[in-house]
């Protein structure tokens, strides 16, 4: 651009001025896409990032199904938890068919013929192709107390009138394994949840105090954590649950076990909290809050905690599996929950000896949901952990 004076000679520079209205922010303007991204809240960013982790999303969906099922276990299970069938003890799983002699019948099973083999006293069941037993849906079957509150007898599906429906076989009392597994989900999954809540609170408290105040609080907590961590976990769980009074009701035992699981598990969380607080407390916003006279609890709770809450939730998710496995192991040994409370571990307790593997392998089936839940929780937790820091 060249500069020259106007012919008028009044000293003004001659330059072009646009008459259009001028928007001073036009340089910073963003596309709506960008705007959506930059204006998104932290939680929204996490959600987007989480959605990109395909495996975690699938795992989350599976977990949601499992956790939803514990709300309506009674409805989903074809039989009642305790209904026995003396005619069908150790019956093998009945397989589901759709076609009978090339004809479509809908889902049905073949009835079982029972014979006691007198040579080795083995119960032998053979499916009888003449007994076609179609499955009924949305039907009335064994009556139960829904949530222990009111009587009902509706089931999602039940056996044909006078027929049987043991999709996963029966146990030594002729109880349907599938129904028991469905009921067991309720206990096994909540053990993990309650346990983790306890350990979460403990971890938050001890980690927070030790990280924020430092000094001898810190030393004390660190020593405590070191001591607890140097215990082998399972023997300690065993010792503590053996200490639960025999006179307690099964429900109390259930809470006792969850508390025990939570009491020992918090150390990892406490360490994570401490580490985070140690680094965050040096940040400017923490100092600012302190200078403005905020109390310690307000600084921890209002300023520091939200910054690492997402991390905590992720690592808490990752430690639920160990609790579920812990409960399973304890109940398997007979030191954890006891019947009539039914968890996957209690069910596996019946699969304790080698005969089961050889003769009644279906008694080991409760391990399948254990594996699925533990795996999905691991993937889900991994996804959460990646999403916990969306700005990276």
């Amino acid at each position, binding site marked *: 651009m060249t500069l020259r004076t106007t012919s008028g000679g009044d000293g003004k520079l001659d330059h072009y001025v646009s008459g259009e209205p001028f928007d001073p922010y036009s340089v910073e303007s963003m596309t709506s896409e960008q705007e959506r991204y930059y204006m998104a809240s932290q939680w929204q960013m996490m959600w987007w990032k989480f959605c990109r982790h395909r495996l975690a999303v699938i795992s989350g969906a599976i977990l949601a199904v499992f956790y939803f099922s514990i709300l309506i276990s009674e409805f989903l299970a074809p039989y009642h938890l305790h209904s026995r069938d003396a005619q069908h003890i150790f019956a093998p799983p009945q397989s589901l068919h759709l076609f009978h002699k090339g004809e479509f019948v809908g889902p049905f099973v073949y009835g079982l013929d029972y014979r006691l083999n007198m040579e080795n006293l083995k119960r032998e069941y053979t499916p009888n192709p003449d007994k076609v037993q179609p499955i009924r849906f949305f039907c009335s079957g064994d009556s139960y107390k829904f949530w222990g509150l009111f009587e009902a007898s509706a089931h999602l599906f039940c056996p044909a009138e006078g027929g049987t429906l043991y999709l996963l076989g029966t146990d030594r009392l002729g109880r349907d394994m599938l129904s028991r597994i469905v009921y067991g989900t309720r206990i096994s999954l909540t053990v993990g949840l309650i346990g983790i809540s306890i350990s979460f609170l403990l971890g938050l408290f001890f980690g927070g105090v030790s990280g924020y105040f430092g000094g001898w609080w810190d030393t004390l907590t660190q*020593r405590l954590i*070191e*001591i607890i*961590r*140097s*215990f*082998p*976990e*399972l*023997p*300690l769980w*065993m*010792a*503590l649950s*053996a*200490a639960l*009074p025999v006179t307690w009701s099964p429900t109390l035992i259930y809470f006792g076990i969850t508390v025990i699981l939570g009491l020992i598990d918090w150390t990892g969380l406490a360490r994570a909290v401490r580490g985070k607080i140690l680094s965050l407390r040096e940040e400017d916003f923490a100092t600012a809050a302190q200078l403005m006279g905020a109390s310690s609890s307000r600084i921890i709770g209002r300023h520091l905690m939200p910054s690492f809450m997402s991390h905590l939730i992720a690592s808490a998710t990752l430690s639920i*599996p160990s609790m579920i*496995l812990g409960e*399973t*192991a304890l109940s*398997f*040994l007979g*030191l954890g929950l006891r019947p009539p409370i039914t968890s996957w571990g209690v069910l*596996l307790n019946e*699969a*304790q*000896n*080698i005969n*089961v*593997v*050889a003769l009644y392998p279906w008694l*080991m089936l409760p*391990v399948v949901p*254990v*594996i699925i839940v*533990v*795996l999905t929780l*691991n993937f889900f937790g991994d996804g959460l952990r990646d999403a916990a820091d969306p700005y990276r």
Partner: protein
Amino acid sequence: MFTYFIHRVLIMIPTLLAISVLIFIIIQLPPGDYLSNQILELKSQGDTAALAKAEFLRHQYGLDRPLIEQYAIWLGVWSGPNGFSGLLQGDLGYSFEFDLPVTEVVGDRLLLSFIVSFATIIFTWVVSFPIGVYSATHQYSIGDHSLTFLGFIGLATPNFLLALVLIYFANITFGTSIGGLMDPQYLDQPWSWGKFVSVLEHLWIPVIVIGTSGTAGMIRRLRANLLDELQKQYVVTGRAKGLPPLRLLIKYPLRVSLNPFISDIGNLLPQVISGAAIVSVVLSLPTTGPMLVHALQSQDQYLAGSFLMFLSFLTVIGMFLSDVALAGLDPRIRLGEQAVR
């Protein structure tokens, strides 16, 4: 290094003390004790001779004294009925159920427990090292994915069930006798070559079973560590200068990422011991696990307490060794420790 060593030893003492207190509290938690339960039972049967013996034992082992005194006697810092004779003097107490000193009841079990744990750790190392390195150097390959998946399955399967299934198939395919750590004819025999071989034949099942979850964890950590290292500048430099890939890998990044192998003994040991406890119940191994479960159930307090103490002692020693080894290998750690102080 020497000061670090001393420091670490000194820390171990209060840790062990605190652990012993905790263990004592835990085994005292259930109401009553083995003998008072026994006495109640004998009273109802009217067996006076046995009753007198039980009362005598109760006095003998100081169970009628206050708890703090009992603890001090158990530890060996207070003069008990037999003078100073407790853990510190190597006296593990008396098992009421077996009517024998704990040392005799336990016998080989502690040794076998130790052997199983040791073998498991070796197994974990031997398996996870090549797999971890392979997964990291072949990231996202089919091999990596399938090994990772296998690792996850190992992590998620309750190992007692794995034990059952494995031993069943071992019995069918190899004819290994079910349960135990040796063939029946070697039980209660002095150690011989045949017994040793028999133990080796049986050892692999518990070792695999106990080792799976630890191995899976170790693979994941080694893979992550090595992946971090592989992306660093010095690796790129080395590669640009034309170092052969294998030599480059072994010479630098692998060494740096080896830390978890050492530092994890501390974490691995509690895990291994936990796993061993439950797996040995299933496999009826003559290790500490089954006896511990039983002792806990029957409130045989000195037996249970000594077992727990032994297991914790093993863990603490393991952590100590791993810390010292790590400090020896990695100057950052021992210097860091001093810088904090």
